[in-house]
């Protein structure tokens, strides 16, 4: 017993080191799974308010660019309004009805929010917005801005919410090549924040540089045909099973400012139907 005690005292620094590192590794693993909310969550009230204040100061320096973007978006929406082929309500920013097909329609509600924190240099990037459960934000909602898809909400507190960005190697989005209607998956490879890979497109599809890659209607998160990016580079892999495609992302993640959170009114219905008919996965 005495020897054991002596041993413990002699190596107490090393033992404490092991204990603390284990604690940290536990924290890292807890936070690893992107759907599970961790024990220490960075979308806490205090962290959120500090970020908000810091962002408020930075806002003044971005006003000009944000104004330009909003004006450009307004112009686009006005054009749609005048084109008159489709009926779009005047308050299109708050409520946007997108027809899924001719027989039924899914209603998506867009809630404007501001990015209070964002990163692009890590391998797994996250962002934070200034709206939370108080404003009806829930985990799993999609996030987009006027240029295209930004990411998905991961965890929510009362006033702020944390989202997982497209620039995260653990996040992938179901995508569609608009010209051929082929479905693939957009996945970031952790290298260049302006480019991502488009996977699972077979070599028989003809792709040209500049082709639009949009969201597919396979998930209940994003509306159909929201832009993700444009094709930049196509090459064949060795086995010739899939094409290796790099796309230029349409959103400049380094300059994110205002975004829309997408609420799918029929998500619960879609998900419960999907869960009652589970797919057979080998």
């Amino acid at each position, binding site marked *: 017993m005495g020897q054991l005690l002596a041993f413990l005292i002699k190596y*107490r*620094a*090393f033992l*404490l*080191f092991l204990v*603390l*590192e284990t*604690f*940290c*590794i*536990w*924290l*890292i693993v*807890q*936070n690893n799974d992107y759907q599970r909310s*961790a024990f*220490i969550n*960075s979308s*806490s009230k205090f*962290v959120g308010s*500090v*970020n908000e204040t*810091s962002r408020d100061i*930075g806002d003044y320096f971005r006003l000009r660019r944000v104004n330009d973007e909003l004006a450009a978006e307004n112009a686009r929406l006005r054009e749609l309004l005048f084109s008159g082929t489709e009926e779009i309500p005047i308050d299109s920013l708050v409520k946007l009805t997108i027809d899924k097909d001719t027989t039924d329609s899914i209603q998506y509600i867009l809630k404007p929010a501001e990015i209070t*924190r964002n*990163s*692009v*240099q*890590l*391998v*797994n990037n*996250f962002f*934070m917005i200034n709206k939370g459960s108080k404003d009806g934000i829930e985990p799993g909602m999609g996030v987009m801005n006027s240029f295209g898809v930004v990411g998905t909400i991961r965890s929510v507190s009362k006033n702020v919410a*944390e989202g997982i960005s497209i620039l995260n*190697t653990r996040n992938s989005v179901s995508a569609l090549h608009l010209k051929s209607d082929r479905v693939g998956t957009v996945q970031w*490879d*952790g*290298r260049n*924040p302006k480019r991502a890979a488009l996977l699972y497109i077979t070599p028989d599809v003809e792709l040209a540089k500049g082709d639009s890659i949009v969201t597919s209607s396979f998930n209940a998160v994003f509306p159909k045909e929201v832009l993700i990016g444009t094709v930049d580079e196509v090459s064949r892999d060795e086995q010739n099973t899939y094409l290796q495609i790099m796309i230029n992302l349409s959103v400049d993640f*380094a300059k994110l400012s205002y975004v829309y959170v997408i609420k799918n009114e029929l998500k619960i219905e879609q998900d419960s139907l999907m869960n009652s008919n589970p797919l057979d996965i080998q």
Partner: protein
Amino acid sequence: MTRNLATILITFIILLPLQILVFRNFVVFDMGFCFVYLLFLLMLPLELSVALGMVIALISGLVVDLFYQTIGIHAAAGILLMFVKPFWQRLNSPRSGYEVNDLMLVRTYGLGWYLGYSIPLILIYSFTVLFVEAGSSGLFGITLLKATITAFITLIFILIIQYLFYSK
């Protein structure tokens, strides 16, 4: 002694908010971070016990983690740094030897000693942070580059801050 304690406390109170508010937005070439708060961990005197040093690293690391959205990673790297620090200090002692109370700064033992003391520790820190964050070895090359650039930028800023605010 009291003066040193005051210096440590003031550094902590100023450097940590500076790290999470200012230097978090400061990224060079889209690749390098600047972990300027390491100056605080590096300046802690030899007198401080290893255990207390690791607890301090845990607390400051977790605060930084909360704002970098990398829960646990900075804390783990900081604890590793503080654990290795005493061994490295003993190996790399200046010619005159250490005074137990002295702060580990350029002004106490000179630039040459400080570079030898801080570069390996900063490298350990930035490599731990970036490799744990990358998770797999699939991005080995780019992570290596990022970690090296990060260590370099961190060192430069730590030196600049010392020459500006900690001169004799």
